[in-house]
């Protein structure tokens, strides 16, 4: 096994652990007070209405439509609709960037599928006997560069905006630039490798296959190695940045913005609230009953 393979195992593990840890952190967070923002998609009222528009809403069934949620989520995830509606200038750069990354992720997924197939002795080549592997080969070959080029263009436009747009420039941190440069470097390397060395991604697929089979990967190509090193480093870095907002968005929407479940006697929410009210208050201002439980504060005036 080569050091490059070890680095890749390490980076995939770190990336996986980092993302799972981050997701679990939010899954395990205590119940919070309601802080929804209307429109709440599953209510199905685009204008922003809620069940509070009904007299005696608690005696009626509440609408909770997954289809209405999907109607909102799909354009938001695929086309970044909020940015399109409210910040068109940035959307022009952000959409190809994210769209290109989506295509690149699909490309990586297809590469992994191809590598798995190859481990079973079926080559993924243009002249394979199976139509599926021939199709896999062709689609992978097309969407790879499409993804790289589109996201690279978007990334360069984003970098340009971060430098040229006054509002973005004075409100960006070093990390914002670093992230974009990092991705630019990775995409340029990927494009160069594709263009000069591995136009059919056969070599890259073999590398992935070597990771699956844990057999040595013997290519000495420096450009491919550079691409793989940068990719591995990116995987290590990624979970510790705000770029994980793709996962956060589930929580910001489903657990905050659209979280309108009322507290009903004997319900799950009620049980969580009762448990939270047992926490001891440690805040220190004079009106706060430091040392008492939340459940004990109600009969005081806070003077």
């Amino acid at each position, binding site marked *: 096994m080569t050091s490059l393979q070890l680095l890749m195992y390490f980076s995939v593990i770190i990336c996986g652990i980092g993302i799972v840890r981050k997701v679990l952190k*939010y899954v395990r967070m*205590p119940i*919070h*007070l*309601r*802080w929804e*923002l*209307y*429109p*709440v998609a599953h209510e199905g009222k685009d*204008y*922003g209405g809620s*069940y*509070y*528009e*009904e*007299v*005696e809403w608690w005696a009626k069934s509440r609408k909770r439509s997954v289809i209405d949620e999907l109607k909102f989520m799909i354009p938001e995830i695929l086309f970044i609709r*909020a*940015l399109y*509606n*409210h*910040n068109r200038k940035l959307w022009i750069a952000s959409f190809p960037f994210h769209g290109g990354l989506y295509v690149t992720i699909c490309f990586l997924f297809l590469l992994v599928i191809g590598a798995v197939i190859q481990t079973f002795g079926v080559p993924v080549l243009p002249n394979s006997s199976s139509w599926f592997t021939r199709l896999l080969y062709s689609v992978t070959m097309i969407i790879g560069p499409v993804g790289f080029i589109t996201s690279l263009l978007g990334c360069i436009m984003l970098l340009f905006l971060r430098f040229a747009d006054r*509002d*973005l420039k004075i*409100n*960006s*941190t070093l*990390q*914002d630039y*670093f992230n974009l440069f990092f991705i630019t470097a990775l995409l340029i390397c990927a494009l160069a490798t594709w263009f000069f060395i591995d136009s059919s991604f056969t070599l890259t697929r073999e590398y992935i296959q070597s990771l699956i089979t844990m057999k040595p990967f013997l290519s000495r190509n420096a450009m491919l190695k550079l691409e793989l090193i940068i990719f591995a480093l990116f995987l290590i870095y990624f979970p510790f940045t*705000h770029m*994980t*907002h793709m996962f*956060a968005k589930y929580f*910001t929407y489903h*657990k*905050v*913005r659209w979280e309108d479940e009322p*507290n*009903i*006697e004997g*319900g799950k929410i*009620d049980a969580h*609230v009762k448990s*939270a*009210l047992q*926490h001891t208050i*440690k805040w*220190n201002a004079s*009106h*706060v009953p430091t040392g008492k439980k*939340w*459940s004990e*504060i*109600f009969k*005081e*005036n*806070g*003077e």
Partner: protein
Amino acid sequence: MNNKKVTVKDISKNCEQLIKLDPSDYVKLPPPFDNRDEGVVVQQLTEAQREKFDASLDGYLALAQSRPQNKKEEEALVTTFISGLKKLMSETDNWTFLEPLMLSIEFCARCQTCAEACPIFTASGRQEIYRPTYRAEVLRRIYNKYIKPGGKILGKLTGDIELNWNTVVRLAELVYRCTLCRRCASVCPIGVDNGLITRELRKLFSQEMGLAPKELHELGTVQQLRMGSSTGMTPVALKDIIEFMEEEIEEKTGKKIKIPIDKEGADILLIHNAGEYLSWPENPEAFAIIFDAAGINYTLSSELAGYDAVNYGVWYDDVQLARVAYKHNDVGKKLKVKKILVGECGHSHKALLVVSDRVLSSENLIPRESTLPLLETIVKSGKINFEPKRNNFPVTLHDPCNMVRLTGIVRPQREILRIIAPKFREMEPHGAENYCCGGGSGFAIMQSMNFPDWRSSIAGRMKLKQILDAFKGEIDPSIHKYVCTPCSNCKGQIRDLFNYYNVWEKAGILYGGLVDIIVNAMDDIKEPFIKWEWM
């Protein structure tokens, strides 16, 4: 310092004042107010005020915090702030809002999409310190640098900041330059909520450092819990006012109505914002007229906090929020009513219907609802005859943020106006995309020094622009126009805003509640209920 070049790091700079506002930068208002701000001398603080309080943010004082007098006090400010910040980020100390707060701290992409949505940032001529991300970024950087492991080194990458007493004092004032309307959050592609970050910072200052505007705390929640109302109105005074209202109803309408109070076993406990009784008694009077005509079995309460729906805790302090919410529910339980109905008060909708839902366990809660759906049902029921021609004047609707974007009550008020007001037109944008009146999150009641000037000239500016635009072509003061404002705090802000710009005299626009205009259209009321005069 050049206002437009102020950066996040500058908040800790040792300078006399971070920005100086110039009215010529503000968003232009439509005629006849297009030249209103030219040459206006903004109210300056006196020397004594400047000496006593720290006005080094923008020259205005909402919180009015005293300057630290020595090094020890300066250090204490920073130490207490850090101690509060640790609690803000703790699962047990801040279970109430940790998840939404952390999501907003961790995942902002600094895309600035929120900036254009903020009426204060826009109206002020895009002042950097009012940008929705500014105070959020200050907190984020302090957290990254001073709380997170390795922050002293990694902080350079994630954005540097120096935490000193200037930072703390300015941040404490800056959290009172946002009305928590959350319009910024509604446009964020990621779902980051800078309004929540501001609210949580207010909480840190209040719950750990004891810093909150006196109108919200001592005169607000504390007074409400002690005396019954943030207005200082006692139960005895309430009963006197109710008697006065009964007499006034008879005088105005010829109807002899007994307003029920402390009626055990009624179906509904109706709680108004107590400010209505003192400033706009015609509003609870109109409720009494409508409910009497519709045969609603309801009662008011004279119990402590039972006659004041406000819960200022929702803007700055979870402990006070919980205490007031408990009292409201407890009054309903004691009166054995089936439900609590919240009158025309926006933030009470949010506090009582939504936020306090999880700060009390179910045995301390009783069903709560808004008056608006019930009013819609009454208007559509045919129990009352209306003559819409009586409202034959231009009408527009102000949407209180807390009712629309934050509670999701958008349709009933419109349905009512479409029936009873033939010249009703929307202002743009409206509904869940509305602009705050500029008095949100307590601003409407905050009268500290020169803060009301800031509130009228900046915070309420986009609302005034919207109102004027809604009546475009009818600005002539001889044409009487009505801004239907179903929220007590919004009314207070619009009153101050109209006074500041002399809107009644120059444009003939009056404001009032929803029930007022409903009663104005009732065909058995002889005289118009709405009095076209500026009070």
